[in-house]
């Protein structure tokens, strides 16, 4: 299977993640969309490092750094969401209009 197959899968993942972020109002559903987008970026990195002349491991190391970022982002975002829920009893993002703690 060629590079195009993986790039197409990653493009579909990216678009679905975007659609998830655009249409959902629930903060946790937005986070899921972000994870989909990050996964599609990772898939692109690995596919490019496999099928082009770049060294094989470079794309994989880049993906590991992206996973590190995703993990820390998820932890901080989850803390914010739980705080929001405690204050507003709701995590619909269009109801959260106050940022001041």
């Amino acid at each position, binding site marked *: *299977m060629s*590079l195009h*197959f*993986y*790039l*197409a899968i990653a*493009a*579909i*993942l*990216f*678009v*679905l*993640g*975007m*659609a*998830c972020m655009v*249409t*959902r*109002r*629930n903060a*946790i*559903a937005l*986070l*899921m*969309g972000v*994870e*989909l987008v990050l*996964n599609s970026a*990772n*898939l692109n990195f*690995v596919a490019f490092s*496999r*099928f*082009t*002349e770049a*060294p*094989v*491991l470079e794309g*994989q*190391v880049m*993906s*590991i*750094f992206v*996973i590190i*970022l*995703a*993990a*820390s982002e*998820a*932890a*901080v975002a*989850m*803390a914010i*969401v*739980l*705080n929001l*829920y*405690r204050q507003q009893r709701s995590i*619909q993002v269009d109801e959260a209009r106050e940022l001041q*703690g």
Partner: protein
Amino acid sequence: MDVKVVMELLFGLLTVASAAWVAFSPKLLHAGFSLLFTFFGVAGLYVTLGADFLAAVQVLVYIGGILVLLLFGILLTSAMPTAELSSRAARRGQGLLLGLGLLALLLLAIFRASWPLSLPPLPESTAAGIGKGFMTTWLLPFEVASILLLGAMLGALHLARRAGEDA
């Protein structure tokens, strides 16, 4: 057909189908569990690309860490986890339009561009090379990432504290 091609098609289909369910499922908890299959499908695609260590990291961090965190969040914040997600019809139309346009653009770019293709030989196992790389070539980003993780951990702890509670 080759076994590898079958695996690629299978994992690709699993990834795309479950990601579509994540994006469009009316129930949040179903979307959360569907995300598990997406992460697993991507890990399978990593294996077909020869990235065995990365596939293990994907399963450990995404499924074992991030997904569990998200599911905890869903269960903690919704009184009725199977309740309908509010998603406005107008927004849904706009999102569909945006998504289809973006997908057409991306696919056009992918299939029209001329990529410098080659198929370098795969190492037996990637874990050794990645470990050596982290201790030599990518030492600085590795250390910066560890500081970032520490900062994120402290930040998350600080944010999750109840207001007025002492550290």
